[in-house]
């Protein structure tokens, strides 16, 4: 798609915060949202009074068993007596919510925005997979009682078969991300693993192995956005949103070739065009692609045009995507290591770019003064791609 006109304002991320990601939080969903929102505001030295509007992102209502979950979470997220709206595109929500925040400010309608993403999966008993049963088509799929592991196993199989990739090749992603997560203070599943341990872990649904799957998690993340005028007053180190893109494919996932995510490519091209990026492999310094399963990191790197088709596994095998490599991928530890509270997981990636591009990531800091980062999320029925590009220079 072609960008029509210049936005009314440049938009920057000026604050970020998150809760710990964990299997079972004692906090209520509202408290999780509050904790993240407060941390983000404090990091920007702001209070709710400085916020013009609030954007909330959360995925299925079924996790909490709360109808109109966005309304329920509005006070915890700081939406009281403010323009407040919840947006969602399934698992892609975490990166879409800051895009929605960007829309609010780039339209010229608001100067500042608070973006909060929350997910509490542990309320869903005995296991959140039960809620996922209700994402499928009522007539043609639900009667088969599918779960996410099944359908992603199909996609992983198709990906492996198309390009001749082995489970061992993909296992390198788990080793890298879980090791990266050891240095993330909010991480749920950081671990020092070997490729053999991943390959020998129990098979959930062939070819998905236990150590190649992100966990169900509870958690929340938040970022504060501001227009150019306000951003410069709020911080000396604004991180600019220079490109946004999102794309939704057909509901009939069985009709598309699962080997390659075209919708991710279209979302990426939209963001690259806006950011003026012509050679993504050279211009993107840090990547936070969505990695709920190990193969998804590779699948997405290819869709993002950051790796040739079928070749993304070489980045992990050769150490190029390591934190100290030429193109660090998931320096946060990703969903495999930090955890996967669905909508909050994507925003965690945006928070990571914020900290990395401000060189505030502590022991996780990637070397070489990175300037441009990309975060991407994915979701629905293997159907949606959401992409954001951030820079520490305008």
């Amino acid at each position, binding site marked *: 798609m072609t960008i029509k006109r210049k936005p009314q304002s440049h938009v920057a991320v000026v604050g970020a915060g998150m809760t710990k990601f964990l299997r079972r939080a004692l906090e209520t969903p509202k408290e999780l949202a509050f904790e993240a929102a407060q941390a983000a505001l404090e990091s920007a030295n702001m209070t709710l009074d400085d916020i013009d509007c609030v954007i909330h992102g959360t995925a299925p*209502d079924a996790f909490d*068993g709360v109808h*109109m979950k966005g*309304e329920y979470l509005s006070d915890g997220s700081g939406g009281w007596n403010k323009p407040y709206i919840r947006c969602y*595109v399934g698992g892609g929500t975490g990166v879409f919510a800051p895009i929605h925040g960007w829309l609010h400010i780039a*339209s010229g309608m608001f100067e500042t925005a608070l973006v909060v993403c929350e997910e509490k999966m542990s309320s869903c008993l005995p296991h959140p997979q039960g809620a996922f049963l209700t994402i499928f088509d009522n007539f043609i799929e639900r009667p088969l009682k599918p779960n996410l592991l099944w359908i992603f196993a199909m996609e992983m199989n198709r990906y492996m078969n198309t390009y001749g990739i082995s489970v061992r090749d993909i296992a390198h992603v788990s080793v890298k991300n879980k090791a990266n997560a050891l240095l993330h203070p909010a991480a749920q599943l950081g671990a020092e693993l070997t490729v053999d341990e991943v390959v020998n872990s129990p098979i959930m649904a062939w070819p998905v192995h236990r150590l190649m799957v992100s966990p169900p998690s509870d958690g929340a993340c938040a970022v504060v956005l501001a227009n150019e005028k306000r951003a410069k007053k709020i911080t000396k180190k604004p991180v600019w949103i220079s490109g946004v893109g999102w794309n939704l494919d057909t509901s009939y996932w069985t009709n598309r070739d699962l080997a390659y995510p075209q919708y991710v490519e279209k979302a990426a091209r939209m963001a690259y065009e806006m950011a003026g990026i012509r050679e993504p492999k050279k211009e993107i310094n840090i990547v936070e692609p969505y990695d709920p399963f190990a193969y998804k990191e590779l699948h997405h790197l290819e869709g993002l045009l950051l790796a040739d088709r079928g070749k993304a596994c070489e980045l992990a095998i050769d150490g190029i995507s390591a934190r100290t490599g030429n193109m660090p991928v998931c320096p946060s530890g990703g969903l495999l290591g930090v955890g996967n509270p669905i909508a909050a997981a994507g925003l965690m990636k945006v928070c990571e770019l914020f900290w990395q591009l401000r060189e505030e990531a502590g022991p996780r800091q990637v070397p070489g003064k990175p300037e441009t980062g990309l975060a991407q999320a994915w979701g629905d029925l293997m159907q949606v791609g959401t992409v954001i590009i951030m820079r520490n220079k305008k």
Partner: protein
Amino acid sequence: MSDKVAIVGVGISRPQKETPDISYKEMVYEAAVSSYNDAALASHRDIDGFVTCAEDFLEGTSIFDEYTPDQLGAVQKPVHTICGDFLHGLAIATMKIKTGLMDIVAVEAHSKASNIKTYYHIVNYALDPVWNRPLNVNPYYVAGLEMRYFMNNTNTSEEEIAQVVVKNKKNALHNDLNCFGASVSRKEVLKSQTTFSPLRELHMSKHVDGAFVFVLAHESVAKKLQKNPVWITGCGWSSDSPTLETRNWDECEYAKRSTYMALKQAGLKNLNQFDFFEIDDTFAYKELQHLEGIGLYEKGSAGKACLNGDLNTDGKTPVNISGGTLGVGALLEASGGIRALEIVKQLRGDSGKRQLQKAKRALALSWRGIPTTSGVVLTFEGPK
């Protein structure tokens, strides 16, 4: 805000009490095709982005946005879903166009309420799971409580509230989309069964099925697509507290704040500049509460104005010429569609028998229903 945005295409799947013969996808397809034709689009491919409005539990499907693209011609396009009324969707689409990212955006909302067997049961799941839900009572009691509070707080009488029902159901008789138009008297309203005291059967709007798809465009292309573009001049939305215990029962805070925001954008100082209003009337008292909330009437005076005929089609401030949700039917997240459609028709001069002589500017308000305190206000201006 320098970039103007207009509604250039409207399409519907007409409201019906039951639609056993078609799916929601077919309803949305029907609305989309007629909207794209109305906008004289050469192809659905010309649309840059899409906004849809839905809530999971009302659809019976989690992350319902999955099932939105095909019937809209939106496959592999920037599409996203919001939890909000159709008017929220129009506001978000307006914002998308103002960013400069897009020129043409389509907005969709639908209701397949006839698929919902136990609506009250679903609404109960919107109450706080710790404090309120365990009471295990029908959530409509919240409306009963609010109506009682409104009547006491503003000295509004049952007669005045009954007149809202009489007016809207009568207006609906002239709207070919109506499902509940009727000539009823205040006496009949006051004799209808008490449901959640002081709420009565005829005070409550009933759900219908239907779908709305609108096409919005930037001023640079609007006139090429539609000779009578209707301009969206202001969008405001706001939420008060979600909890029953801490919200402001005294004032309709969301209506007040949304109106302030919309008027500021529209560059208007007061509501006298609007020729008519399409206001949420999920419950009859809500129309009056909202009219006072937006500031069209002083506290306690909307009911009297209604009884005097000021809110009638030929009154000083016509409200709900469409017949509102009391007369046409409520469409879940698509209820705002009835309001926006009526405004587009009036401002285009296409309202037939119920066409107002002076219809240049209008204001619409939607509320997200029990137990929320979220509302949205849009202001519109005609093509001429």
